[in-house]
């Protein structure tokens, strides 16, 4: 029984860790899209951090899922991790996790082969974050047993608020205004002195 509960703690722990990491990934993603450097971090580092943390999150998610499946305490099959809503243990809430995992897997996979698939396809898939993240949050709030009290509640709420704000900012901000140099440097074009139509039709 100790082995079982260790796996369960590991699963929940890595779940919380993934929640925090992915919140950071989302904030960094919004900042990457914003195109500005951070104090001490040039733009390429913001983008690089976003990328590396997302890969780290994948690793922690892998542990979160594996330990949950292996743990005999709940009846989860491997397939329930990727095919949503078909399991026997809390199919709806577990399924939300599977759904968000599928979407995240697509985002990560397309990002790794970005150069080969072109920007448009990559961008469309990456927009899936607006679906994947609320779904993941719902999974976390419904399945995290201690999430109704104490620090875990505040942690989860904090992550939701911060990531939600980042996503909302990204949704609402006009992308072309975020990096100032381009649009604002447009100086007004002076009016041509006078319209002058001198196109004649005379032949010599």
């Amino acid at each position, binding site marked *: 029984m100790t082995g079982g509960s260790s796996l369960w703690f590991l699963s929940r722990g890595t779940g919380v860790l993934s929640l925090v990491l992915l919140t950071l990934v989302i904030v960094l993603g919004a900042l990457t899209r914003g195109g500005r450097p951070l104090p001490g971090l040039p733009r390429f580092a913001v983008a690089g951090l976003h990328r590396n943390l997302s890969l780290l999150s994948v690793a922690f998610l892998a542990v979160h899922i594996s330990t949950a499946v292996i743990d005999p305490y709940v009846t989860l099959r491997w397939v329930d991790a990727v095919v949503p809503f078909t399991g026997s243990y809390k199919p709806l809430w577990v399924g939300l996790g599977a759904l968000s995992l599928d979407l995240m897997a697509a985002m990560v996979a397309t990002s790794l082969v970005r150069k080969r698939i072109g920007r448009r396809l990559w961008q469309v898939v990456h927009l899936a974050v607006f679906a994947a993240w609320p779904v993941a949050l719902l999974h976390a709030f419904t399945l995290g047993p201690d999430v109704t009290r104490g620090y875990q509640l505040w942690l989860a709420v904090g992550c939701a608020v911060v990531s939600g704000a980042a996503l909302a900012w990204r949704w609402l901000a006009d992308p072309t205004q975020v990096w100032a140099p381009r649009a604002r440097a447009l100086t007004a074009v002076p009016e041509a*002195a006078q*319209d002058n139509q001198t*196109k004649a039709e005379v032949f010599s």
Partner: protein
Amino acid sequence: MTASLVLQERLLAADIGSGRFRDLGVHVGLHGPLPTTGASTLITQVQASGLTGRGGAAFPMARKLTAVAAGAAPVVVANGAEGEPASSKDRILLSYAPHLVLDGLQLACRATGASVAYVYVHEGPLVAQMQALVTVRASTGVDAVPVTVASAPARFLSGQDSAVVARLNGGPALPTAVPPPVYLRGVGRRPTLVQNVETLAHLALLARHGASWFRSQGTDSEPGTMLCTVGGAVGAPGVLEVPIGLVLGEVIERAGAPAAGVGALLVGGYHGAWLPPGGALDLPLSVEGLRPLGATPGAGVVIALPAGACGLVETARAVSYLAEQSARQCGPCLNGLPAMAQTLSRLAGRDRSRGLEERLAALTATVERRGACHHPDGTVRLVRSALRVFAGEVAAHRGGVCTATDLRPVLPVPTSRVGA
């Protein structure tokens, strides 16, 4: 090789201005029927004739034909967009001698093996006119290849190669990023020949009369005649046909004796260059003849500035127009051209602030060759030639003085239209 001084008109032969030659029968009566020359013979003829593009780039047509013919299922486009406001030659040709263009289009299709053809025409009444003519030719069986008439927006860049292709592919008439070039992948992802309508008209006559006939006018290295649009301080502004290599003074005279004194000349349109008054009149209107002064004939625009006008004010007007006509796809152009226009306008307005010339020079260096098309480069050429030729005016303006006596606008600059 001295250019023939006795012009035998070719494209503008007979009483073109009457409009009779819009009738297919009249056209055939003068020029004969569409030649049945085979593809490879056609290309050989074009090669021997030395015909180059009349759209501004003067690229050898034979090379273009060969490149496109090498591809699978090519497309040919007769480019009559004429986005240059100071040029009227394509419009006149399509209006008064359209069958020469349409004949040339069929011949180009045969030479490249194309079974799809377009006529891309400046928006307006010409579109319907061309459609009617294409229908007549199709119904009488003259055109082996069906021709689609498409309309070009009235924007400066509408006639640019990749913009033409973009438009025909269903998008806006804006340049696209090279690679691959349109002769490899263009309309419908097929190899596309984009040829100016005047070039095709020359082809129509060349196929009937042969390469030697074609070379009997013009220079050895630049044979044939060209259409030019002459405007400004001339008695009878309009479209003329001249042998390539004719000196500019003669070109000006053929457009009517100069109305007032002639000042500087703008040659090649708004992506062309200014030439200094006096000496320029002895220069031949040819690529080789104008090269030493950093100019080219371009699409044949020649504008004579009246001696009393201010070249800086006129250039500022043109550059403002060019800035407004940017496709706004590339940062250096989108930002740099308006900045250039504003600085030049201040200079033209006798603003005495320091550093205007330096700022202008820095901007030209910054935007040059940094963009998907040559709009910035052409604008830079115009600005630099103005600073060279009107150096005296620049000095005067720095001191707050303009020596011009006549500030009536000369260069045709359409008012900007929103959402074009």
